[in-house]
Protein backbone atom coordinates (compact mmCIF):
# COMPACT_ATOMS: atom_id res chain seq x y z
CA UNK A 1 0.00 0.00 0.00
CA UNK A 2 1.88 3.04 -1.17
CA UNK A 3 -0.40 5.53 0.46
CA UNK A 4 2.36 7.42 2.20
CA UNK A 5 3.66 8.59 -1.15
CA UNK A 6 0.46 10.33 -2.09
CA UNK A 7 0.67 13.50 -0.04
CA UNK A 8 -1.17 16.58 -1.11
CA UNK A 9 0.63 18.48 -3.80
CA UNK A 10 -0.69 21.94 -4.30
CA UNK A 11 -0.28 22.79 -7.92
CA UNK A 12 -0.60 25.54 -10.40
CA UNK A 13 -0.27 29.14 -11.22
CA UNK A 14 0.29 31.28 -8.15
CA UNK A 15 -2.87 33.34 -8.13
CA UNK A 16 -3.09 36.22 -5.71
CA UNK A 17 -5.31 35.32 -2.78
CA UNK A 18 -8.54 37.14 -3.42
CA UNK A 19 -11.99 36.95 -1.91
CA UNK A 20 -13.16 35.16 -5.03
CA UNK A 21 -10.49 32.53 -4.41
CA UNK A 22 -11.52 31.73 -0.86
CA UNK A 23 -15.16 31.54 -1.88
CA UNK A 24 -14.20 29.14 -4.62
CA UNK A 25 -12.14 27.11 -2.19
CA UNK A 26 -15.01 26.91 0.21
CA UNK A 27 -17.25 25.72 -2.59
CA UNK A 28 -14.74 23.02 -3.57
CA UNK A 29 -14.60 21.82 0.02
CA UNK A 30 -18.37 21.67 0.17
CA UNK A 31 -18.51 19.68 -3.08
CA UNK A 32 -15.80 17.34 -1.83
CA UNK A 33 -17.71 16.54 1.33
CA UNK A 34 -20.91 16.06 -0.65
CA UNK A 35 -19.10 13.48 -2.74
CA UNK A 36 -17.63 11.87 0.33
CA UNK A 37 -20.78 11.95 2.45
CA UNK A 38 -22.46 8.64 1.50
CA UNK A 39 -19.39 6.47 1.98
CA UNK A 40 -18.34 8.39 5.07
CA UNK A 41 -21.77 7.91 6.64
CA UNK A 42 -21.52 4.22 5.73
CA UNK A 43 -18.09 3.89 7.31
CA UNK A 44 -19.17 5.67 10.48
CA UNK A 45 -22.54 3.94 10.89
CA UNK A 46 -21.67 0.43 9.82
CA UNK A 47 -17.99 0.12 10.75
CA UNK A 48 -16.79 2.64 13.33
CA UNK A 49 -19.84 2.74 15.59
CA UNK A 50 -20.16 -1.08 15.61
CA UNK A 51 -16.49 -1.40 16.58
CA UNK A 52 -16.98 0.90 19.55
CA UNK A 53 -20.24 -0.88 20.36
CA UNK A 54 -18.79 -4.37 20.31
CA UNK A 55 -16.27 -3.38 22.97
CA UNK A 56 -19.02 -1.88 25.11
CA UNK A 57 -21.32 -4.86 24.62
CA UNK A 58 -18.55 -7.28 25.58
CA UNK A 59 -18.67 -5.81 29.10
CA UNK A 60 -22.37 -6.37 29.73
CA UNK A 61 -24.81 -9.20 30.15
CA UNK A 62 -27.79 -8.75 27.87
CA UNK A 63 -30.43 -10.80 26.05
CA UNK A 64 -31.95 -7.82 24.16
CA UNK A 65 -35.15 -8.03 26.21
CA UNK A 66 -34.28 -7.32 29.81
CA UNK A 67 -32.05 -4.32 30.70
CA UNK A 68 -28.29 -4.63 30.30
CA UNK A 69 -26.20 -5.54 33.31
CA UNK A 70 -22.61 -4.36 33.65
CA UNK A 71 -20.36 -7.36 34.30
CA UNK A 72 -16.89 -5.98 33.57
CA UNK A 73 -14.47 -8.46 32.10
CA UNK A 74 -16.24 -11.58 33.32
CA UNK A 75 -17.58 -12.41 29.84
CA UNK A 76 -14.00 -12.88 28.71
CA UNK A 77 -13.57 -15.58 31.36
CA UNK A 78 -16.97 -17.16 30.88
CA UNK A 79 -16.67 -17.68 27.13
CA UNK A 80 -13.68 -19.92 27.76
CA UNK A 81 -15.13 -21.68 30.82
CA UNK A 82 -18.71 -22.28 29.70
CA UNK A 83 -19.10 -21.57 26.01
CA UNK A 84 -16.27 -23.63 24.64
CA UNK A 85 -14.71 -20.66 22.89
CA UNK A 86 -11.23 -22.04 23.56
CA UNK A 87 -12.26 -25.18 21.72
CA UNK A 88 -13.65 -23.06 18.88
CA UNK A 89 -10.37 -21.20 18.57
CA UNK A 90 -8.43 -24.46 18.44
CA UNK A 91 -10.81 -25.82 15.80
CA UNK A 92 -10.49 -22.60 13.80
CA UNK A 93 -6.69 -22.71 14.04
CA UNK A 94 -6.80 -26.34 12.88
CA UNK A 95 -8.90 -25.29 9.90
CA UNK A 96 -6.51 -22.46 9.05
CA UNK A 97 -3.52 -24.79 9.29
CA UNK A 98 -5.20 -27.35 7.03
CA UNK A 99 -6.29 -24.66 4.62
CA UNK A 100 -3.61 -22.02 4.10
CA UNK A 101 -0.39 -24.00 3.46
CA UNK A 102 -2.02 -26.44 1.02
CA UNK A 103 -3.92 -23.69 -0.75
CA UNK A 104 -0.79 -21.56 -1.09
CA UNK A 105 1.41 -24.40 -2.33
CA UNK A 106 -1.16 -25.52 -4.87
CA UNK A 107 -1.86 -21.97 -6.02
CA UNK A 108 1.84 -21.37 -6.59
CA UNK A 109 2.31 -24.77 -8.22
CA UNK A 110 -0.55 -24.21 -10.61
CA UNK A 111 0.71 -20.73 -11.43
CA UNK A 112 4.15 -22.09 -12.31
CA UNK A 113 2.57 -24.84 -14.38
CA UNK A 114 0.35 -22.43 -16.29
CA UNK A 115 2.76 -19.50 -16.56
CA UNK A 116 4.04 -20.38 -20.00
CA UNK A 117 1.45 -20.35 -22.71
CA UNK A 118 0.66 -23.79 -24.05
CA UNK A 119 -2.47 -24.77 -25.91
CA UNK A 120 -5.10 -25.23 -23.23
CA UNK A 121 -3.34 -23.52 -20.35
CA UNK A 122 -5.38 -20.35 -20.79
CA UNK A 123 -8.57 -22.36 -20.55
CA UNK A 124 -7.43 -24.05 -17.34
CA UNK A 125 -6.67 -20.66 -15.80
CA UNK A 126 -10.23 -19.60 -16.49
CA UNK A 127 -11.75 -22.83 -15.22
CA UNK A 128 -9.77 -22.63 -11.99
CA UNK A 129 -11.12 -19.16 -11.24
CA UNK A 130 -14.80 -20.05 -11.70
CA UNK A 131 -15.15 -21.46 -8.15
CA UNK A 132 -14.21 -18.06 -6.76
CA UNK A 133 -17.54 -16.68 -7.97
CA UNK A 134 -19.58 -19.71 -6.99
CA UNK A 135 -21.90 -19.25 -4.05
CA UNK A 136 -20.20 -21.00 -1.10
CA UNK A 137 -23.54 -22.11 0.35
CA UNK A 138 -24.51 -23.74 -2.95
CA UNK A 139 -21.12 -25.40 -3.30
CA UNK A 140 -21.42 -26.61 0.29
CA UNK A 141 -24.57 -28.59 -0.43
CA UNK A 142 -22.96 -30.04 -3.56
CA UNK A 143 -20.01 -31.22 -1.47
CA UNK A 144 -22.48 -32.71 1.02
CA UNK A 145 -23.81 -34.82 -1.80
CA UNK A 146 -20.39 -35.78 -3.19
CA UNK A 147 -19.08 -36.73 0.27
CA UNK A 148 -22.23 -38.42 1.57
CA UNK A 149 -21.69 -42.03 2.69
CA UNK A 150 -22.94 -43.42 -0.63
CA UNK A 151 -21.74 -40.46 -2.72
CA UNK A 152 -19.24 -40.22 -5.54
CA UNK A 153 -16.15 -40.32 -3.33
CA UNK A 154 -17.17 -43.50 -1.56
CA UNK A 155 -18.37 -45.09 -4.82
CA UNK A 156 -14.92 -44.42 -6.25
CA UNK A 157 -13.21 -45.84 -3.15
CA UNK A 158 -15.55 -48.82 -3.38
CA UNK A 159 -14.20 -49.63 -6.83
CA UNK A 160 -10.75 -49.76 -5.26
CA UNK A 161 -12.06 -52.09 -2.56
CA UNK A 162 -11.98 -49.46 0.19
CA UNK A 163 -14.96 -48.71 2.41
CA UNK A 164 -15.00 -44.95 2.72
CA UNK A 165 -15.97 -43.25 5.97
CA UNK A 166 -19.03 -41.10 6.57
CA UNK A 167 -16.90 -38.09 5.75
CA UNK A 168 -18.89 -35.27 7.30
CA UNK A 169 -20.13 -37.10 10.36
CA UNK A 170 -16.84 -38.43 11.62
CA UNK A 171 -14.52 -36.42 13.85
CA UNK A 172 -11.37 -37.16 11.91
CA UNK A 173 -12.59 -36.33 8.40
CA UNK A 174 -15.20 -33.57 8.78
CA UNK A 175 -12.78 -30.66 9.09
CA UNK A 176 -10.42 -31.83 6.33
CA UNK A 177 -13.41 -32.10 3.96
CA UNK A 178 -14.51 -28.55 4.84
CA UNK A 179 -10.94 -27.37 4.30
CA UNK A 180 -10.89 -29.17 0.96
CA UNK A 181 -14.10 -27.40 -0.11
CA UNK A 182 -12.58 -24.01 0.67
CA UNK A 183 -9.25 -24.80 -0.95
CA UNK A 184 -11.13 -25.85 -4.07
CA UNK A 185 -13.02 -22.58 -4.00
CA UNK A 186 -10.09 -20.18 -3.58
CA UNK A 187 -7.00 -21.88 -5.02
CA UNK A 188 -7.60 -20.55 -8.54
CA UNK A 189 -8.22 -17.06 -7.23
CA UNK A 190 -4.90 -17.09 -5.40
CA UNK A 191 -3.21 -18.62 -8.42
CA UNK A 192 -4.01 -15.44 -10.34
CA UNK A 193 -1.96 -13.35 -7.90
CA UNK A 194 0.97 -15.73 -8.23
CA UNK A 195 0.67 -15.63 -12.01
CA UNK A 196 0.89 -11.84 -11.89
CA UNK A 197 3.81 -12.02 -9.44
CA UNK A 198 5.70 -14.61 -11.48
CA UNK A 199 5.11 -12.69 -14.66
CA UNK A 200 6.82 -9.65 -13.15
CA UNK A 201 10.10 -11.49 -12.48
CA UNK A 202 12.57 -10.66 -15.29
CA UNK A 203 13.78 -13.72 -17.17
CA UNK A 204 17.32 -12.29 -17.20
CA UNK A 205 17.58 -13.10 -13.48
CA UNK A 206 17.04 -16.79 -14.23
CA UNK A 207 19.52 -16.66 -17.11
CA UNK A 208 22.11 -15.09 -14.83
CA UNK A 209 21.46 -17.70 -12.15
CA UNK A 210 21.74 -20.50 -14.71
CA UNK A 211 25.07 -19.09 -15.92
CA UNK A 212 26.30 -19.22 -12.34
CA UNK A 213 25.42 -22.90 -12.31
CA UNK A 214 22.26 -22.73 -10.21
CA UNK A 215 19.97 -25.74 -10.53
CA UNK A 216 16.24 -25.30 -11.15
CA UNK A 217 15.58 -25.82 -7.44
CA UNK A 218 18.19 -23.26 -6.46
CA UNK A 219 16.69 -20.81 -8.92
CA UNK A 220 13.32 -21.35 -7.31
CA UNK A 221 14.71 -20.89 -3.80
CA UNK A 222 16.99 -17.94 -4.52
CA UNK A 223 15.19 -16.06 -7.28
CA UNK A 224 11.52 -16.98 -7.45
CA UNK A 225 10.61 -17.15 -3.77
CA UNK A 226 12.39 -13.95 -2.66
CA UNK A 227 10.90 -11.95 -5.51
CA UNK A 228 7.44 -13.35 -4.82
CA UNK A 229 7.45 -12.11 -1.23
CA UNK A 230 5.04 -9.19 -1.77
CA UNK A 231 2.60 -11.53 -3.54
CA UNK A 232 3.07 -14.14 -0.84
CA UNK A 233 2.33 -11.54 1.83
CA UNK A 234 -0.88 -10.49 0.10
CA UNK A 235 -2.07 -14.07 -0.46
CA UNK A 236 -1.27 -15.14 3.10
CA UNK A 237 -2.71 -12.07 4.83
CA UNK A 238 -6.00 -12.12 2.92
CA UNK A 239 -6.17 -15.92 3.17
CA UNK A 240 -5.62 -15.98 6.93
CA UNK A 241 -8.07 -13.15 7.62
CA UNK A 242 -10.67 -14.90 5.47
CA UNK A 243 -10.24 -18.37 6.89
CA UNK A 244 -10.38 -17.21 10.50
CA UNK A 245 -13.93 -16.11 9.68
CA UNK A 246 -15.07 -19.24 7.82
CA UNK A 247 -18.81 -19.69 8.25
CA UNK A 248 -20.91 -20.45 5.16
CA UNK A 249 -19.45 -23.82 4.24
CA UNK A 250 -19.28 -24.96 7.86
CA UNK A 251 -22.89 -23.95 8.44
CA UNK A 252 -24.26 -26.00 5.54
CA UNK A 253 -21.81 -28.91 5.63
CA UNK A 254 -21.67 -29.83 9.33
CA UNK A 255 -23.25 -26.99 11.31
CA UNK A 256 -20.45 -27.49 13.82
CA UNK A 257 -20.83 -31.26 14.11
CA UNK A 258 -20.26 -34.06 14.71
CA UNK A 259 -20.68 -32.96 18.33
CA UNK A 260 -18.79 -29.71 18.28
CA UNK A 261 -15.83 -31.00 16.29
CA UNK A 262 -16.16 -28.30 13.64
CA UNK A 263 -17.66 -25.50 15.70
CA UNK A 264 -15.40 -22.72 14.41
CA UNK A 265 -15.24 -19.33 16.11
CA UNK A 266 -17.72 -17.57 13.82
CA UNK A 267 -20.26 -20.36 14.24
CA UNK A 268 -19.90 -20.15 18.02
CA UNK A 269 -20.43 -16.37 17.84
CA UNK A 270 -23.48 -16.92 15.64
CA UNK A 271 -24.99 -19.53 17.97
CA UNK A 272 -24.26 -17.54 21.11
CA UNK A 273 -25.73 -14.35 19.72
CA UNK A 274 -28.64 -15.53 17.61
CA UNK A 275 -29.86 -18.76 19.15
CA UNK A 276 -28.83 -18.09 22.75
CA UNK A 277 -29.30 -14.31 22.57
CA UNK A 278 -26.36 -13.78 24.85
CA UNK A 279 -25.11 -10.60 23.25
CA UNK A 280 -22.41 -9.86 25.84
CA UNK A 281 -20.70 -13.22 25.47
CA UNK A 282 -20.92 -13.14 21.66
CA UNK A 283 -19.40 -9.64 21.66
CA UNK A 284 -16.56 -10.77 23.92
CA UNK A 285 -15.89 -13.62 21.48
CA UNK A 286 -15.85 -11.15 18.59
CA UNK A 287 -13.34 -8.94 20.40
CA UNK A 288 -11.04 -11.88 21.14
CA UNK A 289 -11.23 -13.11 17.54
CA UNK A 290 -10.49 -9.60 16.27
CA UNK A 291 -7.41 -9.30 18.46
CA UNK A 292 -6.13 -12.68 17.30
CA UNK A 293 -6.63 -11.85 13.62
CA UNK A 294 -5.01 -8.44 14.14
CA UNK A 295 -2.01 -9.94 15.93
CA UNK A 296 -1.44 -12.55 13.21
CA UNK A 297 -1.73 -9.90 10.49
CA UNK A 298 0.81 -7.69 12.23
CA UNK A 299 3.21 -10.61 12.63
CA UNK A 300 2.88 -11.47 8.94
CA UNK A 301 3.59 -7.88 7.91
CA UNK A 302 6.60 -7.70 10.23
CA UNK A 303 8.02 -10.99 8.96
CA UNK A 304 7.65 -10.13 5.31
CA UNK A 305 8.55 -6.46 5.55
CA UNK A 306 11.87 -7.35 7.12
CA UNK A 307 12.59 -9.55 4.20
CA UNK A 308 11.34 -7.55 1.27
CA UNK A 309 14.69 -6.11 0.35
CA UNK A 310 14.69 -6.64 -3.38
CA UNK A 311 13.75 -3.84 -5.66
CA UNK A 312 13.61 -4.11 -9.42
CA UNK A 313 13.96 -0.77 -11.08
Amino acid sequence: MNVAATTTVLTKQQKPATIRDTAERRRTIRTAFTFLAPSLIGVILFLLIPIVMVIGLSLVQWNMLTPMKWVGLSNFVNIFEFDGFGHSLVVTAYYVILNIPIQTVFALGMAMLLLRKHAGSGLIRVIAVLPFLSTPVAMGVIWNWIFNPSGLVNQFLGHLGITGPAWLSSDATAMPVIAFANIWQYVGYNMLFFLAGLGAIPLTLYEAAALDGATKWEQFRRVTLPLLRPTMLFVLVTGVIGSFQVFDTVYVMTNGGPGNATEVASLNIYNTAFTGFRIGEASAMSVVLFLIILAITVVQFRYFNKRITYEIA
Partner: protein
Amino acid sequence: MTSAISAIPAAKAAPRAERPPQVGKAVRLTLFYLLLIIIALIFILPYLMSIFAAFKPLPAILAQSPLRPPTSPTLSNFSTLFSQYDFGRYLANTLLVTVILTAGQVIFSMMGAYAFARMEFPGRDSLFWLYLMTLMVPNIVTLVPLYVLFAHSHLLNTYWAIFLPYVLGVPYSVFLMRQYFMTIPKEVMEAARLDGCSEGRILWRIIVPIARPIIITATLLAFVFGWNNFMWPLIVTNSNSLSVLTVGIAYFNSNFSVQWNLILAGALVALIPMVILFAIFQKHIVNSISLTGINR
Protein backbone atom coordinates in the same frame (compact mmCIF):
# COMPACT_ATOMS: atom_id res chain seq x y z
CA MET B 1 -15.35 -24.82 -22.99
CA THR B 2 -15.73 -27.93 -25.09
CA SER B 3 -13.80 -26.63 -28.05
CA ALA B 4 -10.59 -26.17 -26.13
CA ILE B 5 -10.92 -29.49 -24.31
CA SER B 6 -11.13 -31.29 -27.61
CA ALA B 7 -8.03 -29.39 -28.68
CA ILE B 8 -5.99 -31.01 -25.94
CA PRO B 9 -5.61 -34.53 -27.37
CA ALA B 10 -4.53 -33.06 -30.67
CA ALA B 11 -1.84 -31.02 -29.02
CA LYS B 12 -0.72 -34.03 -27.05
CA ALA B 13 -0.34 -36.15 -30.13
CA ALA B 14 1.52 -33.57 -32.15
CA PRO B 15 5.01 -33.54 -30.65
CA ARG B 16 5.40 -37.33 -30.56
CA ALA B 17 8.57 -38.12 -32.50
CA GLU B 18 10.94 -41.07 -32.77
CA ARG B 19 14.29 -39.33 -32.43
CA PRO B 20 15.75 -39.78 -28.92
CA PRO B 21 16.30 -36.10 -27.96
CA GLN B 22 12.61 -35.42 -28.51
CA VAL B 23 11.37 -38.38 -26.47
CA GLY B 24 12.06 -36.57 -23.19
CA LYS B 25 10.19 -33.56 -24.42
CA ALA B 26 7.26 -35.66 -25.58
CA VAL B 27 7.05 -37.40 -22.23
CA ARG B 28 7.17 -34.10 -20.42
CA LEU B 29 4.47 -32.61 -22.61
CA THR B 30 2.26 -35.67 -22.15
CA LEU B 31 2.67 -35.41 -18.38
CA PHE B 32 1.92 -31.70 -18.56
CA TYR B 33 -1.35 -32.28 -20.38
CA LEU B 34 -2.27 -35.18 -18.14
CA LEU B 35 -1.86 -32.85 -15.17
CA LEU B 36 -3.87 -30.18 -16.94
CA ILE B 37 -6.71 -32.61 -17.61
CA ILE B 38 -6.73 -33.74 -13.97
CA ILE B 39 -6.86 -30.12 -12.78
CA ALA B 40 -9.65 -29.32 -15.22
CA LEU B 41 -11.64 -32.35 -14.06
CA ILE B 42 -11.27 -31.40 -10.39
CA PHE B 43 -12.73 -27.99 -11.08
CA ILE B 44 -15.41 -29.01 -13.57
CA LEU B 45 -16.74 -32.29 -12.20
CA PRO B 46 -18.67 -30.83 -9.24
CA TYR B 47 -20.60 -28.54 -11.60
CA LEU B 48 -21.09 -31.22 -14.22
CA MET B 49 -22.34 -33.84 -11.76
CA SER B 50 -24.77 -31.49 -10.07
CA ILE B 51 -26.13 -30.42 -13.45
CA PHE B 52 -26.64 -34.09 -14.35
CA ALA B 53 -28.34 -34.74 -11.03
CA ALA B 54 -30.58 -31.68 -11.13
CA PHE B 55 -32.22 -33.05 -14.28
CA LYS B 56 -32.79 -36.55 -12.87
CA PRO B 57 -35.63 -37.75 -10.64
CA LEU B 58 -34.59 -38.71 -7.10
CA PRO B 59 -34.61 -42.51 -7.65
CA ALA B 60 -32.25 -42.08 -10.61
CA ILE B 61 -29.89 -39.93 -8.55
CA LEU B 62 -29.79 -42.56 -5.82
CA ALA B 63 -29.40 -45.51 -8.18
CA GLN B 64 -27.07 -44.20 -10.86
CA SER B 65 -23.49 -43.07 -10.85
CA PRO B 66 -23.26 -39.28 -10.48
CA LEU B 67 -21.07 -39.27 -13.57
CA ARG B 68 -23.85 -40.58 -15.79
CA PRO B 69 -25.78 -37.96 -17.75
CA PRO B 70 -29.57 -38.12 -17.34
CA THR B 71 -31.11 -40.54 -19.85
CA SER B 72 -34.37 -38.60 -20.07
CA PRO B 73 -33.72 -35.14 -18.62
CA THR B 74 -36.61 -33.75 -16.60
CA LEU B 75 -37.37 -30.23 -15.43
CA SER B 76 -39.59 -31.53 -12.64
CA ASN B 77 -37.10 -30.70 -9.88
CA PHE B 78 -37.01 -27.09 -10.93
CA SER B 79 -40.76 -26.85 -11.41
CA THR B 80 -41.25 -28.29 -7.90
CA LEU B 81 -38.88 -25.68 -6.49
CA PHE B 82 -40.67 -22.84 -8.22
CA SER B 83 -44.28 -24.02 -7.83
CA GLN B 84 -44.42 -25.86 -4.49
CA TYR B 85 -41.66 -23.95 -2.78
CA ASP B 86 -40.69 -20.28 -2.95
CA PHE B 87 -37.61 -20.40 -5.10
CA GLY B 88 -39.06 -17.85 -7.50
CA ARG B 89 -39.42 -15.50 -4.58
CA TYR B 90 -35.89 -16.24 -3.34
CA LEU B 91 -34.49 -15.60 -6.81
CA ALA B 92 -36.37 -12.32 -7.18
CA ASN B 93 -35.33 -11.20 -3.68
CA THR B 94 -31.69 -12.02 -4.38
CA LEU B 95 -31.75 -10.19 -7.68
CA LEU B 96 -33.45 -7.11 -6.23
CA VAL B 97 -31.19 -6.84 -3.21
CA THR B 98 -28.03 -7.52 -5.20
CA VAL B 99 -28.81 -4.96 -7.88
CA ILE B 100 -29.56 -2.23 -5.32
CA LEU B 101 -26.48 -3.13 -3.30
CA THR B 102 -24.26 -3.09 -6.38
CA ALA B 103 -25.58 0.15 -7.85
CA GLY B 104 -25.30 2.05 -4.57
CA GLN B 105 -21.94 0.63 -3.62
CA VAL B 106 -20.34 1.42 -6.97
CA ILE B 107 -21.75 4.94 -7.36
CA PHE B 108 -21.10 6.07 -3.80
CA SER B 109 -17.66 4.47 -3.64
CA MET B 110 -16.81 6.15 -6.94
CA MET B 111 -17.82 9.54 -5.58
CA GLY B 112 -15.77 9.02 -2.44
CA ALA B 113 -12.82 7.78 -4.46
CA TYR B 114 -12.95 10.86 -6.69
CA ALA B 115 -13.00 13.19 -3.68
CA PHE B 116 -9.98 11.41 -2.20
CA ALA B 117 -8.07 11.25 -5.45
CA ARG B 118 -8.62 14.59 -7.06
CA MET B 119 -10.20 17.12 -4.72
CA GLU B 120 -8.61 19.17 -1.99
CA PHE B 121 -10.23 19.52 1.40
CA PRO B 122 -8.98 19.69 4.98
CA GLY B 123 -8.48 16.34 6.70
CA ARG B 124 -8.36 14.41 3.44
CA ASP B 125 -5.33 12.31 4.23
CA SER B 126 -6.41 11.42 7.75
CA LEU B 127 -9.87 10.47 6.54
CA PHE B 128 -8.32 8.27 3.90
CA TRP B 129 -6.23 6.56 6.56
CA LEU B 130 -9.41 6.00 8.53
CA TYR B 131 -10.91 4.20 5.52
CA LEU B 132 -7.77 2.09 5.15
CA MET B 133 -7.82 1.13 8.82
CA THR B 134 -11.37 -0.15 8.53
CA LEU B 135 -10.17 -2.54 5.80
CA MET B 136 -8.48 -4.44 8.61
CA VAL B 137 -11.74 -5.05 10.47
CA PRO B 138 -13.10 -8.54 9.83
CA ASN B 139 -16.84 -8.68 9.05
CA ILE B 140 -17.54 -11.09 11.84
CA VAL B 141 -16.43 -8.53 14.44
CA THR B 142 -19.12 -6.00 13.56
CA LEU B 143 -21.85 -8.60 13.13
CA VAL B 144 -23.36 -8.59 16.63
CA PRO B 145 -23.38 -4.80 17.14
CA LEU B 146 -24.77 -4.28 13.63
CA TYR B 147 -27.60 -6.64 14.45
CA VAL B 148 -28.28 -4.71 17.65
CA LEU B 149 -28.31 -1.43 15.67
CA PHE B 150 -30.76 -2.82 13.13
CA ALA B 151 -32.98 -4.30 15.82
CA HIS B 152 -33.16 -0.92 17.55
CA SER B 153 -33.97 0.87 14.31
CA HIS B 154 -36.79 -1.62 13.69
CA LEU B 155 -35.18 -2.58 10.41
CA LEU B 156 -35.03 -6.33 10.97
CA ASN B 157 -37.12 -8.31 8.48
CA THR B 158 -37.06 -5.65 5.80
CA TYR B 159 -35.37 -5.51 2.41
CA TRP B 160 -33.45 -2.50 3.71
CA ALA B 161 -31.72 -4.60 6.34
CA ILE B 162 -30.22 -6.93 3.76
CA PHE B 163 -28.41 -4.31 1.67
CA LEU B 164 -28.11 -1.22 3.87
CA PRO B 165 -24.70 -1.99 5.46
CA TYR B 166 -23.10 -2.34 2.01
CA VAL B 167 -25.00 0.10 -0.18
CA LEU B 168 -23.38 3.38 0.90
CA GLY B 169 -19.98 2.49 -0.46
CA VAL B 170 -17.36 0.30 1.16
CA PRO B 171 -13.75 1.24 1.96
CA TYR B 172 -12.29 -1.48 -0.21
CA SER B 173 -14.10 -0.26 -3.29
CA VAL B 174 -13.24 3.39 -2.51
CA PHE B 175 -9.61 2.41 -2.13
CA LEU B 176 -9.54 0.40 -5.34
CA MET B 177 -11.02 3.20 -7.44
CA ARG B 178 -9.04 5.95 -5.74
CA GLN B 179 -5.80 4.20 -6.68
CA TYR B 180 -6.95 4.06 -10.28
CA PHE B 181 -8.17 7.67 -10.39
CA MET B 182 -4.75 8.80 -9.12
CA THR B 183 -3.24 7.60 -12.39
CA ILE B 184 -5.42 9.94 -14.44
CA PRO B 185 -3.45 13.16 -15.12
CA LYS B 186 -4.64 16.15 -13.07
CA GLU B 187 -4.46 18.38 -16.12
CA VAL B 188 -7.47 16.62 -17.63
CA MET B 189 -9.68 17.71 -14.74
CA GLU B 190 -8.17 21.15 -14.42
CA ALA B 191 -8.86 21.88 -18.05
CA ALA B 192 -12.47 20.80 -17.58
CA ARG B 193 -12.79 22.97 -14.46
CA LEU B 194 -11.48 25.99 -16.33
CA ASP B 195 -14.14 25.33 -18.94
CA GLY B 196 -16.71 25.62 -16.17
CA CYS B 197 -17.49 21.94 -15.79
CA SER B 198 -19.04 21.01 -12.45
CA GLU B 199 -17.31 18.28 -10.42
CA GLY B 200 -20.26 15.94 -10.95
CA ARG B 201 -19.98 16.39 -14.70
CA ILE B 202 -16.23 15.83 -14.61
CA LEU B 203 -16.69 12.59 -12.71
CA TRP B 204 -19.48 11.35 -14.93
CA ARG B 205 -18.27 12.54 -18.32
CA ILE B 206 -14.49 12.35 -18.01
CA ILE B 207 -13.44 10.03 -15.16
CA VAL B 208 -16.00 7.27 -15.64
CA PRO B 209 -15.12 6.61 -19.30
CA ILE B 210 -11.37 6.61 -18.56
CA ALA B 211 -11.71 4.44 -15.47
CA ARG B 212 -14.06 1.89 -16.95
CA PRO B 213 -11.90 -1.18 -16.21
CA ILE B 214 -11.78 -0.51 -12.48
CA ILE B 215 -15.45 0.42 -12.35
CA ILE B 216 -16.40 -2.86 -14.00
CA THR B 217 -14.14 -4.64 -11.51
CA ALA B 218 -15.80 -2.93 -8.55
CA THR B 219 -19.21 -3.71 -10.01
CA LEU B 220 -18.43 -7.40 -10.44
CA LEU B 221 -16.96 -7.69 -6.96
CA ALA B 222 -20.01 -5.99 -5.43
CA PHE B 223 -22.42 -8.15 -7.41
CA VAL B 224 -20.69 -11.42 -6.51
CA PHE B 225 -20.55 -10.34 -2.86
CA GLY B 226 -24.23 -9.43 -2.79
CA TRP B 227 -25.32 -12.58 -4.60
CA ASN B 228 -23.31 -14.92 -2.39
CA ASN B 229 -23.85 -13.13 0.92
CA PHE B 230 -25.27 -15.52 3.47
CA MET B 231 -24.58 -14.81 7.13
CA TRP B 232 -26.04 -11.30 7.25
CA PRO B 233 -29.32 -12.11 5.40
CA LEU B 234 -29.62 -15.24 7.54
CA ILE B 235 -29.49 -13.12 10.67
CA VAL B 236 -31.64 -10.14 9.73
CA THR B 237 -34.51 -11.96 8.01
CA ASN B 238 -36.65 -14.74 9.37
CA SER B 239 -39.60 -14.75 7.05
CA ASN B 240 -39.81 -16.87 3.96
CA SER B 241 -41.04 -13.99 1.83
CA LEU B 242 -37.79 -12.06 2.46
CA SER B 243 -35.38 -14.98 2.10
CA VAL B 244 -32.59 -14.77 -0.44
CA LEU B 245 -31.34 -17.82 -2.35
CA THR B 246 -28.46 -18.64 -0.01
CA VAL B 247 -30.78 -18.68 2.99
CA GLY B 248 -33.35 -20.72 1.06
CA ILE B 249 -30.74 -23.29 0.03
CA ALA B 250 -29.45 -23.60 3.59
CA TYR B 251 -33.02 -24.08 4.82
CA PHE B 252 -33.62 -26.80 2.24
CA ASN B 253 -30.35 -28.43 3.13
CA SER B 254 -31.28 -28.80 6.77
CA ASN B 255 -34.92 -29.76 6.27
CA PHE B 256 -34.94 -31.98 3.18
CA SER B 257 -31.70 -33.75 3.86
CA VAL B 258 -32.12 -36.73 1.52
CA GLN B 259 -33.97 -35.05 -1.33
CA TRP B 260 -30.85 -34.48 -3.36
CA ASN B 261 -32.86 -33.74 -6.49
CA LEU B 262 -34.36 -30.60 -4.93
CA ILE B 263 -31.27 -29.56 -3.00
CA LEU B 264 -28.98 -29.80 -6.02
CA ALA B 265 -31.46 -28.09 -8.33
CA GLY B 266 -31.74 -25.32 -5.74
CA ALA B 267 -27.97 -24.95 -5.59
CA LEU B 268 -27.92 -24.61 -9.37
CA VAL B 269 -30.49 -21.81 -9.28
CA ALA B 270 -27.88 -19.81 -7.35
CA LEU B 271 -24.87 -21.05 -9.32
CA ILE B 272 -26.07 -20.76 -12.92
CA PRO B 273 -26.34 -16.94 -12.98
CA MET B 274 -22.79 -16.75 -11.62
CA VAL B 275 -21.55 -19.16 -14.28
CA ILE B 276 -23.25 -17.08 -16.98
CA LEU B 277 -21.78 -13.89 -15.53
CA PHE B 278 -18.41 -15.57 -15.56
CA ALA B 279 -18.79 -16.77 -19.13
CA ILE B 280 -19.55 -13.23 -20.28
CA PHE B 281 -16.90 -11.44 -18.25
CA GLN B 282 -14.27 -14.15 -17.78
CA LYS B 283 -11.40 -12.26 -19.42
CA HIS B 284 -12.25 -9.19 -17.45
CA ILE B 285 -12.66 -11.04 -14.18
CA VAL B 286 -9.36 -12.86 -14.56
CA ASN B 287 -7.53 -9.64 -15.43
CA SER B 288 -9.17 -7.54 -12.77
CA ILE B 289 -8.52 -9.96 -9.91
CA SER B 290 -4.82 -9.71 -10.64
CA LEU B 291 -5.26 -5.95 -10.80
CA THR B 292 -6.74 -5.79 -7.31
CA GLY B 293 -3.84 -7.79 -5.95
CA ILE B 294 -1.14 -5.57 -7.38
CA ASN B 295 -2.88 -2.40 -6.30
CA ARG B 296 -2.84 -3.36 -2.68
